[in-house]
């Protein structure tokens, strides 16, 4: 049975193809369109998935959309009417947004793919999240907790899933919390208040939280109150996201927390104002963690299960995930590589396969690499055309040479095999560097990633060496498989791992098993033989504001435009030449950096 899953229209659109119960491919639209967070209907992603599997749309047994658009429209309409007259300004815009395209998904799919309406199915948003979390995890029975901004009505759902011995699969969502009471919206509101982009920069709030102290927890708890049944409710007097599209928080919110940050002003942590923003981030982070831990603990007591699958955008919060693992009672916590809406394309397809069509359970490969492959031959061609110096090496020489580059302090763009699904670079589209010196972190932030100086970088470590450098609790290595947890760096190694150790002594570590990314694993070992520490700084291969690179040509242009020293794709290794043009580009980069530095 061939099932295409589609997610679109809100954050991060994607397509995924499941054939005979096993994912074959999946890709986010942004990686193909090159527009970060592209939410448009994922035609390019669908096209690539079908081409990859050599399928015509007619051959699809079902196309599954990841949520019910009409139920969502009902929620938007109901909320707009409930909030009348405050919502009178937002109402036309909301209707225009919804009725322009978003509710006519059946027609859109039918018109683009030519499949009859009867083959177009819909799952509920949190069912898709639950399926993406549970059906891709190597577990037979698990509790499920999904949390995000909002789906149709639900913002949080709890339940459990089971793969039965007879091959049947069950996913049961027991309870849900409904819009506008939402942990995701709470966090997004603080994201907006702190001057970051909503639905995109929430991870910056988490990074900023490390610099602050949770001194405003009491104020945050006035905004979100716990209810006797273990849930929570937002005091809507502090919010406006449910009545207007212009602002997430109200004047009362500003009275409580102080003036919001101007997004054009850099955060200076040396000033009282900068510290207030960091404290604010730390406070909302603390309350989010406490709430999630409580809900997870109750779920553990209720289900008695040892495994928990987390889904929804909030599951990208690695600090919260780590506390859930440590304090909720679950022994293992599984977070997929794409817990947000992009992963819902895969979740919806798997849900339809297992639950709607009652197909027998199949093990899903435990890796995130479902996208287009990187072609080293293409890099050789590009380099040859531009007169760059490149080498085509056998695998072991290439890895030894790359380890030499890293040990010499060079920054390496690393493209290997299929593209990751999800926001993390997990070893196939990564920028790699030595993790030892703060200067390396600053260089990456300033010259390569062009991003805020407070943002940390993540390390990658082989599973064999992970425990030596990081304090991983039981189950920690699993959580760190897709960089879903944040763990303390052992004190004795913090100085030697300064580029990847956050200000609070933690790191969002990726613990790598050989089977998942063999070449990167071998590279880690080769680097360990040189430096004595088999740990590398691993950050996503993109520049600020751009999606992670997909094709080799994108890696190549990123390499040309930034301070990356070496580019590796497949068997091809490319180094920067000292040409007048390259110098000119580098000079531009340097002068920009100087401007930024002086601005700071």
């Amino acid at each position: 049975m061939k099932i295409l899953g589609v997610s679109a229209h809100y954050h991060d659109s994607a397509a995924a193809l499941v054939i005979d119960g096993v994912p074959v491919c999946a890709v986010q639209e942004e990686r193909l369109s090159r527009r970060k967070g592209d939410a448009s209907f994922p035609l390019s992603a669908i096209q690539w998935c079908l081409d990859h599997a050599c399928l015509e749309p007619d051959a699809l047994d079902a196309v599954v959309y990841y949520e019910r658009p009409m139920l969502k429209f009902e929620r938007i309409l109901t909320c707009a009417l409930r909030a009348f007259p405050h919502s009178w300004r937002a109402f036309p815009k909301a209707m225009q947004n919804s009725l322009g395209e978003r509710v006519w998904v059946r027609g859109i799919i039918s018109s683009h793919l030519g499949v009859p309406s009867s083959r177009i199915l819909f799952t509920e948003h949190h069912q898709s999240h639950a399926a993406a979390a549970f059906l891709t995890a190597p577990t037979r029975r698990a509790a499920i907790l999904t949390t995000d901004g909002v789906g149709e009505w639900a913002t949080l759902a709890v339940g459990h899933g089971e793969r039965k011995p007879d091959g049947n699969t069950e996913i049961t969502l027991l309870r849900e919390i409904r819009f506008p009471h939402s942990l995701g919206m709470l966090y997004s509101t603080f994201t907006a208040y702190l001057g970051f982009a909503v639905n995109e920069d929430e991870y910056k709030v988490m990074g900023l939280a490390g610099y602050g102290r949770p001194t405003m927890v009491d104020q945050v708890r006035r905004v979100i109150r716990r209810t006797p049944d273990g849930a929570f409710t937002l005091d809507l007097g502090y919010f406006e996201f449910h009545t207007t599209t212009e602002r997430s928080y109200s004047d009362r919110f500003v009275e409580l927390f102080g003036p919001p940050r101007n997004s054009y002003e850099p955060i200076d942590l040396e000033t009282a104002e900068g510290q207030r923003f960091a404290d604010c981030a730390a406070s909302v982070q603390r309350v989010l963690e406490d709430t999630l831990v409580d809900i997870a603990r109750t779920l553990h007591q209720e289900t008695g299960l040892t495994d928990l699958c987390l889904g929804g955008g909030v599951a990208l919060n690695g600090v919260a995930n780590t506390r859930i693992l440590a304090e909720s009672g679950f022994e293992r916590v599984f977070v997929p590589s794409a817990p947000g809406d992009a992963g819902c394309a895969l979740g919806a397809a798997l849900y339809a396969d297992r639950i709607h069509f009652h197909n027998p359970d199949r093990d899903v490969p435990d890796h995130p690499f479902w996208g287009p492959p990187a072609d080293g031959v293409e890099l050789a061609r590009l380099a040859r055309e531009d007169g760059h110096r490149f080498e085509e090496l056998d695998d072991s020489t290439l890895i030894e040479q790359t380890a030499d580059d890293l040990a010499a302090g060079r920054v390496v763009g690393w493209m290997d095999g299929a593209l990751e699904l999800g926001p993390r670079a997990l070893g196939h589209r990564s920028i790699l560097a030595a993790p030892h010196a703060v200067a390396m972190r600053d260089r990456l932030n300033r010259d390569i990633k062009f991003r805020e100086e407070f943002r940390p970088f993540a390390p990658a470590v082989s599973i064999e060496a992970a425990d030596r450098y990081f304090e991983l609790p039981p189950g920690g290595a699993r959580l760190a498989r897709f960089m879903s947890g944040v763990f303390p760096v052992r004190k004795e190694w913090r100085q030697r791992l300064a580029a990847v150790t956050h200000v609070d002594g933690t790191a969002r570590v990726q613990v790598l098993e050989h089977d998942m990314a063999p070449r990167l694993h071998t590279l880690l070992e080769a680097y360990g033989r040189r430096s004595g520490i088999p740990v590398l700084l691993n950050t996503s291969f993109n520049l600020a504001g751009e999606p992670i690179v997909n094709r080799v040509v994108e890696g190549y242009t990123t390499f040309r435009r930034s301070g990356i020293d070496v580019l590796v794709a497949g068997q091809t290794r490319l180094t920067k030449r000292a040409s007048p043009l390259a110098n000119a580009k580098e000079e531009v980069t340097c002068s920009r950096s100087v401007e930024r530095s002086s601005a700071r």
Partner: protein
Amino acid sequence: MLKKRGAVQRKVIMLGSSFGSIAELAGGLWRSDSGKRWLVPLAVFLSVTGIVLAVAATVEALAPFVYSIF
């Protein structure tokens, strides 16, 4: 390979499938146990208006008549 269809053809297909979607919305509201039946006329009106506008915006020949419709 996805077949490339013209904008008009795609909108006609959308229009054709919209009745089912609107019926699904109305049915959902009607069956809702939270007393939302009164919303059905408004929801249907908005949906029909939305799809008519979406189609009219695509089919240029209809543009002169849009003001007449409303």
